[in-house]
Structures are given as C-alpha cells and as structure tokens.
C-alpha cells in the first residue's frame, strides 16, 4: 500500500535578517505518524515548526496533500488551517487572557463551522472539555485561573477541536513539571490515535521523544543532521551530535563510568 505522504517538506529555509534559523531542510510525514524533532535550544526547531504552518516567512516547498502551503493564497491558507493545528510551549501565553475557556474552545467552531447551532456548539465543547479531563464548570473561567497543566489541556482541546490531520507540538510539555508532562503526553497520544492525526513533536526531552515517536529528526544549527526510526536512532546514533545529545541525558544512579561524548 503506497500512498504519498501527508506532508512533504523540501528545501525549507527560514531567514531572520542576516541570521539563518533553518538551512535547507527536507522531510516527509505520513498520515497518523509521529515525527519527533529534537535539538538544543536555538537549533531552529521552533522556526521550522512555524515555517511549516506559514507563521514565519520561509522559502522552499511545504506540500500538504500536494498543495504548497508556502505559495497558496491567504484565503486558501485559512481554509487549510482547519486541518493544521499547533500547540505552543507556553500554555498561558497562547491563550487570550480576556477570553473564557468556553469562548476559547468555541473559536475554531465559529471560524470553520459558523452554521452550527448554539446547543450543538456547546455540546461539542463540553465533550472535548471532558475528553481532555477538565470540568464543565470551568467553561466560564479565564486562563489565569488555571495551573500550567490545565492551561495546556485547554490548548490541547482547542487544537483538537476540529480533529486536525496534522498537529504540530512546539515543546508542549517543556514548561510543565514532570508529573504533569506525562499526563499531557499521554493525552496527546490518546487523541492522536483517536483522530488518526499526524504529529510533529518538538522537544528536547529525549525520553518523551523516545516514548511517542515513530521516527526522529535531529536538528543542529538549523540543519537536519540525522533522521532515523526511533529504535534505530536510540540504539545506534550515527551523527556525533546525536550521540552527544543522547549522552547529555542525565541518568539516575549513573556513576562516573558514563560515556562522555561532546562536540
């Protein structure tokens, strides 16, 4: 069964003035697949994610079901955004502080399904709210009344409201504490399986990436240095940077005998 990938990125570059955040980068993403993207801070992971969704100016080709996201009209792009979703690193900052949770979740429905009746909209919001583990009485609360983990649940609920086919997660758990990280990651995986969503998961947490990814991309200074299936990458990293990255993961109970790889 051969079908063309959902998302084909080729020669994607992101420039901020004289600074090149992403050098030509190419990769594919298949339906329902989870692609991990790792690299140190400033390696261009977030820029890459935003460029795919055309949130920052970029050059190259991003084919979404054989349609170039970077070249289509603004009208068309807005239509396409129905199937493209993103979750941000800072859960509180990505929620409008003057909107109640109910309004935040209603927004995707207002934009893409304006014909929906009020009752039907409420029903879908409540269903999604329940799905991400929040209570119905939180509908009229404001983002600042929630903890970081709860805010990220709201962010997840908003992103999954229209059952997108691609979900870009830009370090969705980096700002949360460890016990919450697991809950959010599991929630994402559950929803992904339920909706058959392809996921680009950006993180610098190797354990999380290893846990959820089918394939992993490694970025270093704006370039892809390695791309391999999850098992291969963690078992036998090829590029020295990947090895350095893996060696940098602290191991509980490790002694001085750890292999030290550095660039």
């Amino acid at each position, binding site marked *: 069964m051969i079908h063309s990938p959902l998302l084909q990125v080729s020669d994607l570059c992101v420039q901020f003035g004289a600074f090149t955040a992403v050098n030509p980068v190419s990769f594919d993403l298949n339906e329902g697949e989870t692609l991990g993207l790792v690299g140190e801070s400033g390696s261009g992971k977030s820029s890459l994610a935003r460029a795919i969704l055309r*949130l920052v100016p970029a050059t190259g080709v991003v084919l979404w079901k054989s349609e170039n996201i970077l070249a289509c009209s603004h009208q068309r792009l807005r239509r396409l955004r129905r199937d493209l*979703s993103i979750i941000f690193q800072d859960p509180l900052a*990505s929620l409008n502080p003057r*909107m109640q949770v109910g*309004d935040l979740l209603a927004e995707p429905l207002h934009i893409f399904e304006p014909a929906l009746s009020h009752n039907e909209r409420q029903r879908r919001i409540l269903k999604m709210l329940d799905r991400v583990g929040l209570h119905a009485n939180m509908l009229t609360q404001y983002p600042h009344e929630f903890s970081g983990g709860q805010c990220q649940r709201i*962010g997840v609920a*908003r992103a999954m409201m229209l059952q997108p086919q691609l979900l870009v997660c830009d370090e969705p758990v980096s700002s949360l504490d460890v016990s919450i990280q697991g809950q959010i990651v599991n929630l994402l995986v559950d929803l992904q399986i339920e909706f058959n969503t392809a996921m680009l998961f950006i993180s610098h947490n190797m354990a999380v990436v290893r846990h959820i990814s089918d394939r992993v991309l490694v970025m270093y200074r704006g370039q892809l240095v390695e791309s391999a299936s999850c098992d291969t990458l963690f078992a036998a990293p090829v590029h020295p940077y990947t090895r350095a990255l893996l060696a940098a993961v602290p191991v509980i109970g490790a002694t001085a005998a750890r292999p030290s790889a550095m660039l």
Partner: protein
Amino acid sequence: MVLPGIWADAARRFQSGVAAKAGLVVIFSLALLAIVGPWINPNRFDALDWANVAVAPTFQHAHWFGTDRLGRDLFVRALAGTRASLLIGLFASAISIIIGISYGAVAGYLGGRIDNLMMRSVEILSGLPLVFFVIFVTVLFGHNPYWLFVSIGAVGWLTMARIVRGQTLSLRQREFIEAAIASGASTGRIIYKHVIPNLLGPVIVYATLTVSQTILFESFLSFLGLGVQEPQASLGTLISAGAGEMESAPWILMIPGIILALLLTSLNFLGDGLRDALDVKER
C-alpha cells in the same frame, strides 16, 4: 458575554480605592444635578431679574448661588454650564474611543506600509494647531455648538489612536495572537476578538482623561470667545464672565470655578482608580 469575570475582578479592586469611589460619586451627583437642576429651581438660565443684579448667594427668589451682572440666576446657569461641559467631554471621548481604537488597532496590527501611511496622517493632523483649527471651523461654519463638537472630536482621537497603536504593536508579538492566526481566524476577527479586548485597560483610563482634557479645552475656547455662545452657558464662559467681576462679586467666578475643579479632580481620581483596577499586573 463580554468579559464579566475580568470586570467583576476590576470592580472589586476599584471598590477598594477610596479616592476613585469618591470621584465617581462626585461625578454622578454633578451629572444628576445638571440634569434635574432646571426642575428644582424656579429660575431660568436666561431670565433676567433686574431687581436682583449681582446679588450674593441668598435664599431670596431662590438665587441659591447668587446672580450675575445681568441678574441671571447662577445656580441654574452653573448647572447648565456643567451639562454643556460634560456633554462635550463625553462626546469627545466617545469619538476618541470609537475612531481612535479602530484606527490605532488596524494600523498597529497590519503594520508595514499601511501603518506608516496611517500614522503619518495622524501626525499631519496633530501638527495642525488645535486653536487655529477651531477658529478656522468657526469662521467657515459660524458659531454653532455642533461645529464645536465636530472640531473637538476631529482632533481628539489622535492621541488615542497613537496609544492604541503602540499597545497593539506589543500585543501583536504575543503568542495568543499567533495561536489565533494558526487557528485560521481572519484579520478582522483577530483585531475584534483578540486585540481590542486586551486594549481596554489603557483605553478606558485614557478615555476618562480625555473627558477632563476636553472640558478644560472647551473652557479655554469659551474663555477666548470661540466656544459656547451667550446666552448659553458652559463652565468656561461662566468663569470667563466671573473673572471680570473677581473683586466686586467673587461668587460669579467661584461657583463655576469650584464645579470645574471638582469635576476635573474627580475625573482624574476616577481615571487613576480605573487604571489600578484594570492593571493586569496587580492580579
């Protein structure tokens, strides 16, 4: 459902400020008096009482605040003046809110060449000396309070547009705007639903300041003879008339002067209180 929670929060913090609450009470009582004034005093604002010219405040003939040089009752005139001044102030801040917010938010959000064009136009308009502009309008269209409203309104929104644009520029960098773009919201929707509600704090504060600035400006114009015309009264014309009688009949100056001072002080306290109440950092 427009922001009840945020407002409830703000209302609670506002109530804890004594000065702001007192300001609000004073403004409300003055406004109420200005509205019901003509009914609680038998005198008319333009009726001449030749038997009682320039009398000091007295209970005779219900001249509670005395009369001016022409025997007109000062209580009624002062309240009529308050009404005119408040009306002009509210009108100007309504204009500055409506035009200023939409203009500034559009310029700030769209940015680039459009922003440049829009803000340079604002600078050209604000480069015009205001008094010159008002004189120009008065000469062209004659003395008419409506034209006074129009000319004050025409320039009153400029500062608001700048404030709003500046706030919008920094809002535009926030992640929730990026989230709105990513969710497919149209530009109009982003400005209306995401940018403007987050501007309301500074906008409301500046709007209360606009009221007092406009009242002061109208008083100044009336003092020069460009504002409200006799026999109509505004606080400015009353003060202007009173200034000439300062030594012989000080109450003619004192009464409108005290009302103006009370009004301006209360408005400033109210603005301060609102700023504190709506400040997100204090949450």
